[in-house]
């Protein structure tokens, strides 16, 4: 019994220390990254490549997901609103849900799974095959060459992906509501137009998206940097990226929502 208690204490202590030291390493990593940020704009070629990798290549999954999410929102919304004879509001409801919450959040979750995991794996493998060491030996700073373009690339790509997700979602909602359920075409759009506010809804949604981009890509880059440079270590780090980034996005979303819409 005492033995059991002892080992429980030991494990708790070990886990706490592990978490504390990885938070510390993360903070140091961010601190080293921030001063190097301006270099992203001295190397436009690298930046464009990263926007392509994390942005353009994520488009198919983002557009498909957006379409389905919009269709489901519209269908569920219609079923509720029709009882109150206000099914024209389904456009407003779909647009607001997408702009304020689902657009930024679901895009960030998909981005963590699609681009974040790829970033971690790429950097982890670069380290395990000594490519980062080789860069350092060639007097090329991996911070400026690898990390900063990926971070800034994600910050540019994610809000754009998010907007496309929202656009696609509204289109999906329109298809279901107007094309299938027979909501009036003009009412669908005019209600939406009247109730969506530029600053409250659109700008706030984009701010969220930028915040999520910073969070997801920093987690992904740090996990890649911090991975044990073996295949097992890299595969674990990839999993951690998806888990930490997803939970982080959901938690941060609550905080931002409380700040913005309260």
């Amino acid at each position, binding site marked *: 019994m005492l033995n059991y208690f002892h080992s429980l204490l030991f494990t708790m202590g070990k886990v706490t220390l592990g978490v504390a030291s990885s938070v510390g390493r993360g903070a140091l990593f961010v601190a080293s990254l921030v001063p190097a940020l301006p270099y992203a704009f001295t190397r436009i070629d690298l930046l464009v490549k990263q926007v392509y990798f994390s942005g353009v290549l994520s488009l198919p999954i983002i557009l498909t997901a957006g379409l389905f999410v919009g269709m489901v929102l519209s269908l569920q919304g219609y079923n509720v609103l029709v009882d109150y004879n206000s099914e024209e509001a389904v456009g407003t409801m779909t647009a607001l849900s997408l702009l304020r919450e689902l657009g930024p959040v679901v895009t960030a979750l998909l981005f963590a799974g699609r681009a974040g995991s790829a970033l971690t794996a790429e950097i982890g*493998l670069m380290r395990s*095959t*000594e*490519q980062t060491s080789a860069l*350092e*030996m*060639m*007097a090329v700073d991996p911070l400026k060459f690898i990390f900063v373009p990926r971070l800034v690339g994600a910050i540019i790509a994610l809000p754009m992906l998010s907007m496309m997700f929202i656009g696609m979602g509204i289109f999906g909602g329109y298809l279901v509501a107007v094309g299938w359920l027979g909501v009036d075409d003009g009412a669908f759009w005019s209600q939406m137009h009247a109730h969506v506010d530029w600053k409250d809804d659109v700008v706030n949604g984009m701010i969220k998206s930028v915040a999520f981009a910073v969070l997801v890509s920093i987690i992904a880059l740090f996990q890649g940097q911090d991975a044990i440079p073996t295949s097992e270590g890299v595969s674990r780090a990839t999993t951690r990226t998806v888990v930490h980034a997803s939970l982080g996005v959901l938690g941060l979303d609550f905080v931002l929502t409380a700040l913005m819409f309260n």
Partner: protein
Amino acid sequence: MTTETVIRIENLRFQRGDRVIFDDVTLDIPEGKITAIMGPSGTGKTTLLKLIAGQLVPDSGSVTVYDKNVHKLSRSQLYVLRSRMGMLFQSGALLTDLNVFENVAFPIREHTDLPEDLIELIVKLKLQAVGLRGALELMPSELSGGMSRRVALARAIALDPDMVFYDEPFVGQDPITMGILVSLIKKLNQSLKLTSVVVSHDVKEVLSIADFACVISEGRIVAQGTPEELLASDSEYVKQFLRGLPDGPVPFHYPATDYIEDLSC
């Protein structure tokens, strides 16, 4: 010797966890010469190169390159120093998303503003020297181990550095290629006055070109001198190592508990 020392290692001590890799190592590497570093696998030859290049930091002692203490330099000063160094990594360490041509061109593109046709010329010259001009278009994943290492060698000398560190350049090369690489290292050293440090197990080949050689084992330098001096040495250690005999003072095993005891538990 009348030559200047470019790399001076003094009282170097380095540990990995509890394992002491270097214990009070002192070594001078002369300018414009070929220095061979030999020693059993796992003694820390790669580690020594990384310490010289400032990628690892010693626990105590110092490494001075061109009269500058490597581990006291700022990041940008270190990068200036490194732009005078070329390193052939044991694993090759090619950038996997670039083809052979772009890998060799990489340091040139990063550090110079040369026009494209000149870059192409330099890259082809370097690749010709390692016998891989025909492999321009291949990706690193399409190369054999020996080929990757030769591309990495071409990349290490792309910018005509003042010093080159070769970590096991002969591993995985056939006898003919090996002969060519041996004479390439010699030629580079002579024509460019390159300071070369060659880590290798191929005692015969490396001693044939080295001006100076040292053997490290168990964290210490056990012998150093010209190849002739080493070959004539009557130290048991050196004799065993250079002739590759299984029995003698050089340990083949990673430090461990007693074998019989370990098996009988």
